[in-house]
């Protein structure tokens, strides 16, 4: 299915304020987990059944010796053909027809976690070690079906995140990539035909996050 909604994450406008990461916790009523600083601004260290969204920080040196610092607000891509669903048999994972949101039901506790995770190109699903239920971003399903935009998009101060009907978001992405290419020849939208959460990057996706463009 190719209608429904999409999110555009334009990393060229992201300032890593992490409003989206915190808004996700807040809307979903998820607890702050115990963390340590391990030599980066990035925290928590990974997605979990209590963390559906993390801003990935990646720094280094470009060929010209100048520093870069890339930010990648990681979340479920809500694939058009979700790989994680391959292991599902009885609607443990559903794809909402109207919105396109990929939703994990409580029945995911019956699924093989390893197989579900392996099915996801972006390493997104996580499991509650106690209940075995799986969790990830819901595209703020209850918000978007009630006339609101996702909490993360709502919190974004710079317009780096946009939410809307998929065809309009695709159009927006295309136009923005053309604009960005003038200054950044490597600018691209990541897998726009396969995913609903479309990331725009101005450099090699691997310089943002190892799974930015898939495993």
């Amino acid at each position, binding site marked *: 299915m190719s209608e429904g909604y999409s999110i555009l994450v334009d990393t*060229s*406008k992201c*300032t*890593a*304020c*992490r*409003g989206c*990461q*915190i808004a996700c*916790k*807040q809307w979903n009523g998820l*607890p*702050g*987990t*115990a*963390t*340590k*600083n*391990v*030599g*980066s*601004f990035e*925290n*928590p260290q990974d997605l979990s059944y209590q963390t559906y969204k993390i801003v990935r920080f990646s*720094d*280094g*040196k470009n060929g010209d010796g*100048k*520093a*870069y*610092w*890339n*930010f990648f607000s990681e979340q479920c891509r809500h694939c058009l053909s979700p790989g994680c669903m391959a292991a599902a048999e009885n609607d443990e994972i559903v794809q909402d027809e109207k919105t396109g949101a990929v939703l994990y039901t409580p029945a995911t506790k019956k699924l093989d976690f390893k197989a579900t995770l392996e099915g996801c190109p972006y390493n997104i699903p996580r499991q509650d070690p106690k209940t075995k239920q799986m969790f990830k971003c819901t595209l703020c399903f209850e918000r978007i079906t009630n006339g609101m935009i996702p909490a993360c998009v709502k919190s974004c*101060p*710079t*317009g780096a995140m946009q939410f809307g009907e998929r065809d309009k978001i695709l159009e927006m992405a295309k136009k923005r990539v053309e604009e960005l290419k003038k200054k950044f020849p490597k600018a691209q939208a990541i897998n726009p035909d396969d995913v609903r959460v479309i990331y725009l990057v101005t450099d090699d996706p691997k310089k943002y996050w190892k799974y930015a463009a898939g495993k």
Partner: protein
Amino acid sequence: MTNHWIDLKNSDCILVMGSNAAANHPISMKWVQRARDKGGILISVDPRFTQTAARADIYAPLRSGTDIAFLGGMIKYILDNNKYFKDYVVNYTNATFLLGDKFKFEDGLFAGYDPKTKKYDKSLWALKKDEKGVPERDMTMENPRCVLQLLKQHYSRYTLEKVSEITGTPKEDLVKVYEAYAATGVKDKAGTIMYAMGWTQHTVGVQNIRAMCLVQLLLGNMGIAGGGVNALRGESNVQGSTDQALLFHILPGYLRTPTVNLANLESYLKVVTPKSVDPKSVNWWQNAPKYVVSLLKSFWGEKATKENQFGYGWLPKLDIGQNCSWLNLFDAMYAGKIKGFFAWGQNPACSGANANKVRQALGKLDWLVNVNIFDNETGSFCKAPGADPKKIKTEVFMLPCAASVEKEGSISNSGRWAQWRYKAVDAPGQAKPDGDIVVELMNKIRDLYKKGGKFPEPILSLKWDYVDQKGHFDAHKVAKEVNGYFLKDVKIGDKEYKKGELVPAFPLLQADGSTSCGNWIYCQSYNQQGNNMARRKKDDPTGLGLYSQWAWAWPVNRRIIYNRAAVDLDGNPWNPARPLLKWAEGKWVGDVPDGPAPPMSDPKAGKYPFIMKPDGVASIFGPGLADGPFPEHYEPLECPVPKNIMSGQFVNPTIKIFTGEMDKHLTCDPRFPFVGTTYRVTEHWQTGIMTRWQSWLIEAHPQMFVEISEELAQLRGIKNGEKVKVSSARGEVECVAIVTTRFRPFKMGELTVHQVGMPWCFGWMVPKDGGESANLLTPNVGDPNTMIPESKAFMVNITKA
């Protein structure tokens, strides 16, 4: 801000220097992005490659504490390459003014320096005036004693080579920034600066900002949409607290605190009322007596009479030269000279420079009242690591107060917009709004004075009726008092005003006691039309984002101050595409103009644009500051270089250096070889009192860290994520090392200098292993004008923990 947040979108070139806006003022980047969408350029100049740098079109590194060298080089570039906006400079600044014969500058010192007092005799910096008292000018700017020529001479030393050697900024990066920014020195381009504590917290803090003012004036960027000098304030209402004079040296509305030598009202008014004999100069401060008398009437109501000089004698007065700013207060506290202390909405045990001294000082008190929404390192200072509660005599009281959403009132943002906020929920438990705490406290004090005590008149004569029927603090009553009332029926011009009416705006305030006003710059905020701060209309007729009917901005709802510099001498906008103001059919259209007078070229009634300056023009030569009329590079008190290559004067010659046992500083000392600086992170607020208890925020930034370069990590054998110890002459802090390419060693001539940076949002209380405050390391030395501590440039060592 001379401009306001939304106005950033109108800029062609945004320089972020002395600030990391993306991290610390995240919403500002919305407007920066709008400017960039239209082709605007973003420049970040910072010792560290920050979140702002990550988004910038141009990034240039510089060593902490060398901003004047960097900007001095820009001034030289603008002058050498004739990039300045000549019509603006000639007509709207004092570049054409001539200096008296006594002014000179030699080897880092201006004329009139007294090494004993460490002060300048500023009379030697006076402008030359004719027999009538009008400043002498050379409109060709060729006279060697005119300001522009002296400016050229002053900055001729700031060559790319020297600047690069001081700042550590590669020459090509300097040129890139200079070229891009100087391109705004034309009629139809605007450049703006976003700065914050990265400029103020230095021994040359005020002069850092002055240097940028010079750049902005040379390029014609003051008073225009997309321009200005914009301080990003560090607290949501710090602009309001300054306006309302929560400082020792001013009364509300930036009127100076009287000193003991000004024994009567007349003598005080004489020094606060500047004179100008130039008919084209508005010299707005000539109205100061109206504001002073109205303020006294607001304090003391009917008890303030003409006969008792409106109660002027009851105002507290400073001794000559007395400075009651933060560093001096805590020095006095440490010396046992202060017995009691209200720590109200603050956390000095973590926020004060040289926090070890602050913590020791708190132990010298008899009592400490901590007013806050949470316990903090100040209220619990006697439980700090290394402290022995048994040996501390200070009695501590905790008064829980309401958070911002638990009370009603106004809040003034950086753009001078006073916005009314409603109460969302009641405060929990016994927590009370600050206003109620003040009312209860003052009621008790008044009761005690009624029983006796020295000099009770100022306390007992106060007009003190700011509560509602239930006896609670009434924000509306206070807001109206701040706006001001007519105290009797009066006729001004052909209009009559009744006793008890709110004053429409400050031009109607009077010096005869017939009006009251708690703060003249806020007069119009709450008048007969209603509470203007509560307005929420979104009309934007100019399309420039002024939103003049959204809330209210001081003064008189002017959204961009000095906006009469946005037009040419005939009142036409310099940039017709961004017409902030325009003289059309005998009146001004656009923003609220800086005065109703016709444009400057009008032979009869035309006025100069800079109405708050006695001469009517902006000061490229600024003879008012403690440390000189032109900004000059001096090294920070603690620095990594053995000499100042710009002059024989190593550090700012006018700074006060404390010399007690806790006041240590070491410069060029091999034990502390690296430059240290402090900053904030998005997730934590100030010392972290409101955010370290918040699980989502502490999850995102859980622990004290230090950012270091890969080169320094290798030098010290430090791996990313390892625990390290950062130390200075004053203390040490354990940190997690973040080894990063975003800090690079500075190549300064033959010298390589490393810099490290730490956030100052942590403290020992919470979370349990979060770490300590970076202010245990920072020096208690301040700017000679403001006494703001030099927390942004000091020397440290770093070793494996």
